[in-house]
C-alpha cells in the first residue's frame, strides 16, 4: 500500500492532501503534527532521511522531507507548509541523526527555525552573517567580509578594510 495513503488513514486530521511527487508518494501534513507523524514514519521502517529541502515561495515556506526505507525499498515524501512571517517547525534530530546537519543547513541558508534542535547554529556560513541567502529577498548587492578574531573565530562585517589590500 502507498505509504502516503497509509499515513492519511492513520492520521486523517493531520494530512492535508496526498499525491505524487513525480513518482514518489507525497503527503502534505500540518506542521503541528509533524513530530507525531515522523515517529510513525520511523516505525513504518523509513530509516533513511535522504534530504530536507526548504523552499521560499515568497508568500509561504515549504519544507520537504524525502524518506527511504531500506527494508521495504520504498520512498515517502512529507511536505509541510509554513507561514512566511514565522517559519518554525519541529526538529526531527531525535529520530534521524542526519537531520542534525540537514536542519542546520536549512536554517543557515533558508532561515527556517527548528524547535528542539540541540545546536541550531549556522553551518556553512560563519556566525554573524546577515540574512539567509536562499531566500528570494536576500540582498546580493551587499558584500559581507569575514575577518579573524583573537581566538580565531569569524567576525562578519561589511567593512573589509582589515582584509583587503589598499
Amino acid at each position, binding site marked *: 500500500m502507498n505509504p502516503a495513503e497509509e499515513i492519511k488513514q492513520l492520521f486523517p486530521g493531520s494530512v492535508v492532501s496526498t499525491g505524487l*511527487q*513525480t513518482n*514518489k508518494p507525497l503527503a502534505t501534513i500540518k506542521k503541528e503534527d509533524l513530530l507525531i507523524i515522523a515517529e510513525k514514519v520511523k516505525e513504518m521502517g523509513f*530509516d*533513511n*532521511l*535522504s*534530504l530536507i*529541502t526548504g*523552499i*521560499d515561495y515568497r508568500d509561504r515556506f515549504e519544507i*520537504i522531507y*524525502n524518506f527511504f526505507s*531500506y527494508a521495504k*525499498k520504498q520512498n515517502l*515524501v512529507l511536505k509541510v507548509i509554513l507561514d512566511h512571517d514565522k517559519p518554525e517547525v519541529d526538529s526531527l534530530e531525535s529520530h*534521524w*541523526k*542526519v537531520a*542534525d*546537519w*540537514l536542519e542546520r*543547513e536549512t536554517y543557515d*541558508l533558508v532561515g527556517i527555525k527548528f524547535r528542539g534542535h540541540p545546536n541550531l547554529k*549556522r*553551518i*556553512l*556560513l*560563519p556566525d554573524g552573517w546577515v540574512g539567509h*541567502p*536562499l531566500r528570494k529577498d*536576500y540582498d546580493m548587492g551587499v558584500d559581507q567580509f569575514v575577518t579573524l578574531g583573537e581566538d*580565531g573565530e569569524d567576525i562578519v562585517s561589511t567593512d573589509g578594510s582589515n582584509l583587503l589590500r589598499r
Partner: protein
Amino acid sequence: MRTEELLINMGPVHPSTHGVLRFKLTMDGEIIRKCDIVMGYLHRGTEKLGEMKTYLQFVPYTDRLDYISAFPNNYAYVKAVEELAGVEVPLRAEYIRVLTLELNRIVNHLVMLGSLLLDLGGSTMIMWGFRERENALQLFEMLCGARMTFNYIRPGGVREDLPEGFIPKLNEFIKDMENRIVDYEELISGNEIFIMRMKNIGVISAKDAINYGMTGPSLRGHGVNYDIRKIEPYSVYPDLDFRACVRNECDSFARYMVRIDEMRESLHILRQVVDAMPEGKPTSQAKYGIAPMTGAPTAVSTYFPRIFTPPPGEVYSRIEAPKGELGFYVVSDGTIKPYRIKIRSPSFCNLTAIPKMVEGLMIPDLIAAFGTIDVVLGDVDR
C-alpha cells in the same frame, strides 16, 4: 586518573583533511572525547547561483561540486531535469553516459585510495593511483577536451559522440587496469601495518550508519546491500550484469575493500558497455519547450534547444555516485530558470557519522576513518 581536557584544532589547512575542513577535537590524553566538525570554508553558493542560471547553464557548476567525479554530478542533475521536462534520451547516449559514469567511478576510487594511503604515511599508492588516473583522464580528454570539469552530459543526451579511436584506447585501459588492481591489492590489502591501522578502526553499527545518513560504498562496508543502481534502476543499468559490493565488518578496512571490489565491478560493466554500444545519435532530436535561441547554430547540443522550459513541478532524482547517494531536488516554476535547486551531496551526509565514529579513538585513527569515508570538500560545502 583524571586528566585535563585539551582542545586541539585540525585544519582548515591540514594535509589530511582533503581540502578545507576543520576538526575541533576535545582530547583526553591521546583519546578523542569529542569531535566537532566546522565546515563551510568552501561554501560557494552553488544553489543560489542555480536560481540565476538557465537549466543548461547550471551543468558546469555541477562539475565543480565533486570535482574528482564530475560525470556523476553532471548526470544526476541532468537526470533530474530530464525527469522534470519529460525528455526521451536516445539509447546510445545512455550507454555513453554509463560508460563515463563507471570510468569516473574508477578514477574516484583511485584518488581515494591514493590520498588514504598518503594520509597513513605511504606514498606509493598515490603515485600509482595518479599514474592510472592520468590514463583515464586522457580518455576523458578525447571525449570532451577537459580533464576534470567536463560539462559533457547535457539534457537530451551527451555533447558529442564518441571520438574515433576511443573504444580501442578504452579497451587498452580496461586491460591495463585489471592487472593494476592486482598490484594494488598486493601492495596494500595484505600489508600488516595497513591492516593494523584499518581493522576495527572507525567501527559504527549498520543501524547507526543508516541513521547518520551514510550511503554508497561507505554504507556497503556495513553489510547493507544497498545500491541505487539496483534498487531504483536508472539509465541502462537494468540491462547490465553487475553486483553491489558488500562487506560486513563495519570497519575502515571493510570500507576500503568495497572500493577495491567496486573498481573490478566497474571494469566488468565497462566491458559490457563496450560490447553492447548501440548505433545512433548521441543527442535527442525531439523539439522541446520553447524554440531555441536565435543566432548561428553551433556544434554544441545541435538538436536539443539550449533554452527550454520544463512544466511547473518538482522532482527529487538520485543516482549512485562513487561517494554515495547524490540527488538533485529541482523545482520548476515554468520559466527558463529553475526556481530552486537543492543538492543532496553524499559527502555532506557521510561526514555526519564521523564524530560518532571516532569517539574514543586516537588522532591517527581519525585520519584513517576519515580517509575511508571519502569526502570531497566541494561536495560538502557546495
